[in-house]
């Protein structure tokens, strides 16, 4: 298209857009609301997904875990591994690995004088656990472990109430040593934590790693190594390097394999955002086609005139597509602004404690943090522009194919 013709086409498209300003404004508003809804919904879902992923990965923890090959099938202390050394240690010190923690993780029983419960005992090194972000964030009473030699025990609030025990009281910790004998030890509850999910509070108790290793008689061996790069979507790019570096008898698993529920949830949600956007757009498209078809209908004579003056069909088509593009562009701008304005204030969190237990089923906490992401804005823009132009093609095509004489002689 020549430059001059482009400018005349854009002038015509813009001015024609405002000839029936009421119709244009209504359509503009409809597009803006549609776009707003697309982005708002996507932000809510992304917030929910992020939250679930965060909780899920904190519980695993890490984006990649290294175990003795049999451990996942039989999470017993017998299936332990030596702490990372040699090539694996070097690989773990390199980016993109941000942090890692080696821990003992065994099934255990905690008994108070009143009751006992089965739990997962985590023997941890507080400093490295803190680096991968897996420690309970909220210590309600007492303190967390000081170092891996700490001989105290940190339990969840829910477990404390079920066992009818309290801070400073002694409980008995029982587990199995590699010889299948029961190893037990009296420990003092030094801290009570609160977690986002009650299930977590019931499940996990924390003790110093060296103390647990001593109790189980396993020297410096550990159950798992949790590794994080702080980007769960990128895990497939770097975990193969680790897999290559571990020796015989160990396995490296990314979170997508460790928790297939999280993995499928992520892909379903990503797909769902797109489906939602397309559906909203389809409802919009009827109005869009209608508006454009009316615009063509009202201007048949004018289009005939332009054809008579030598405007080629391609320019007529271009003019109408451009008019539609202006409308879509304005609607998108307005919709994105609306989304920005409505999501920003909500980013500090929406209180959903009213449905907290329902959300807990999905691995959510009591607050929903909508997450406005550029990709969602870009995706909605792409959906609106691409599908919008496709929908506009039909009326625009009809306009371009008008017979000049028929068009000129049309009476309004």
């Amino acid at each position, binding site marked *: 298209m020549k430059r001059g013709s482009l400018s005349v086409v854009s002038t015509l498209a813009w001015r024609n857009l405002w000839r*029936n300003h*009421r*119709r244009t404004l*209504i*359509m503009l*508003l*409809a597009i803006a*609301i*549609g776009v707003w*809804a697309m982005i708002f*919904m996507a932000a809510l879902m992304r917030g929910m997904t992020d939250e679930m992923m965060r909780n899920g990965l904190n519980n695993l923890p890490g984006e990649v875990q290294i175990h003795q090959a049999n451990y996942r*099938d*039989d*999470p017993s202390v017998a299936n332990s591994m030596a702490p990372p050394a040699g090539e694996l240690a070097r690989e773990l010190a390199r980016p993109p690995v941000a942090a890692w923690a080696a821990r003992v993780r065994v*099934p*255990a*029983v905690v*008994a108070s004088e*009143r*009751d*006992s*419960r*089965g739990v997962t005992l985590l023997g941890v090194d507080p400093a490295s656990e803190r680096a991968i972000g897996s420690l309970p964030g909220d210590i309600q009473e007492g303190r967390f472990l000081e170092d891996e030699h700490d001989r105290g025990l940190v339990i969840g609030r829910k477990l404390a*109430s*079920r066992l*009818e025990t309290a801070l400073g009281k002694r409980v008995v910790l*029982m*587990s*199995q040593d590699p010889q*299948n004998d*029961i190893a037990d030890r009296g420990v003092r509850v030094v801290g009570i934590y609160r977690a986002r999910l009650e299930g977590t509070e019931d499940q996990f108790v924390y003790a110093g790693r060296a103390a647990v290793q001593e109790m189980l008689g396993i020297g410096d061996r550990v159950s798992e190594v949790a590794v994080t790069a702080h980007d769960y979507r990128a895990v497939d790019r770097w975990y193969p390097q680790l897999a290559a570096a571990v020796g015989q008898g160990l396995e490296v698993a990314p979170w997508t394999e460790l928790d*297939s*529920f999280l*993995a*499928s*949830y992520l*892909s*379903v949600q990503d*797909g769902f955002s797109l489906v*939602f956007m397309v*559906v*909203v757009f*389809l*409802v919009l498209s*009827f*109005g869009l*086609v*209608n*508006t454009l*078809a009316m615009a063509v*209908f009202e201007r048949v004579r004018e289009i005939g005139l332009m054809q008579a003056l030598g405007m080629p069909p391609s320019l007529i088509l271009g003019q109408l597509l451009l008019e539609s593009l202006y409308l879509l562009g304005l609607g998108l701008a307005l919709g994105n602004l609306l989304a920005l304005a409505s999501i920003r204030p909500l980013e500090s969190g929406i209180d*959903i404690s*009213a*449905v907290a*237990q*329902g*959300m*807990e*089923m*999905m691995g959510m906490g009591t607050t929903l943090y909508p997450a406005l992401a550029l990709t969602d804005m870009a995706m909605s823009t792409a959906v609106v522009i691409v599908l919008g132009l496709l929908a506009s093609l039909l009326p625009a095509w009809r306009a371009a194919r008008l017979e000049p004489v028929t068009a000129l002689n049309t009476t309004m």
Partner: protein
Amino acid sequence: MSVTWRLAWRNLWRHSRRTWLTVGAMVFCNVLLIFLISLQLGSYQMMIDNSLATYSGHIQIQQRGYLEDQQMRQTVPAVARLAAGVRSVLGVETVSARGLAFALASSEQRSFGVLLNGVQPEFEPAVSTLPGLVRQGRYLAPGDRGQIVIGAVLARNLKVGLGEELTFLGSGRDGSFSAGVATVVGILESGMDEIDRSVAQVPLSWFQETFSMGDHGHSVVIRVPDLDRVPEAVQTLQGMLPAGESLEVLDWNALQPGLRQAITSDLASAWFTYVVLIVLVAFSVLNTQLMSVLERTREFGVMLSLGMRPGQLARLVGMETLLMAALGLGLGVLLGALLTQYLSAVGFAYPGMDELGAKFNMPGRMYPEVSLLSLFWGPAVVVLGALLAAIYPALRLFRLAPVEAMRAA
């Protein structure tokens, strides 16, 4: 009257393409609403049924406070007799007594802390679907004593198979030391790790003996034929509770509060979707009707000068909208009904649904539930939205002056 309707109908077809596009928007929206609502109703029903059927039942009778603390001593006395009483009062067989105790289960090689569940072998299959999931061996039978059925993951972790023995160590109701040995007679596999890791069921009588329970248990589980009958049954049961005991009757909502909330939160996001769709359709109608009013200014001027009142013209526009909306409703409901009827027969799957469904005790395929509510609720609101959208164009008619209107191009 009929002349006006006829006029309204003909006016619609002056721009048949425009009318069809607007009707098309309504039909599309209606079909979508019908599909989504019936899918939702279908899946909620299924979610509730499946979740409750697995283990918790519709109603339970427990000691007050047991739900929250789950302590060994919070018991229901004479639990089997109470269960029998409930059976006769409600006239249903689907009632079973249970006890629950923590114990350290040890095989030759492994030890795990488990929640040991004492059940009535003759009644448990009537209140829970777990007995039906035994994949190896058999479920408990009446008369069994030292037998146990465990989940597949637990069996793997304990490294036990059928016929092998498990030792249990725990504490009885009075805090005394308890121990027992049971033989694995069945291994059940649900496909859900959480269940397969935790199930350990023994006969109630053996359970009571081992844990010094006397005739006590922890709960009476009741399944009623229909969710709607729960409140009525709860009322009946409250009346029959033995005096002097602090027992309470809990319905499914109290037993699994997460379930209703999960539904509520899902409904909230669904509402958002519905409102957006309906608003967008209303805009489409608003645009169409405004256009049709504006382009007929001259014609309306003539009608005014012939003595028609603005109110009558506004009514004409309203009638046109109503006809259009009725068409959208009729076609939408027809297509929506066909679609959902078809899907309710063959089911509907979304890639990745299986895993998510499992978490909520749902199958991977979903079957929409076709009902009058799901068919008409959405489309009716669309009609309402369309009529609301016609208000602005209709109001413009009251500002019309005949002479100016006739002069308008």
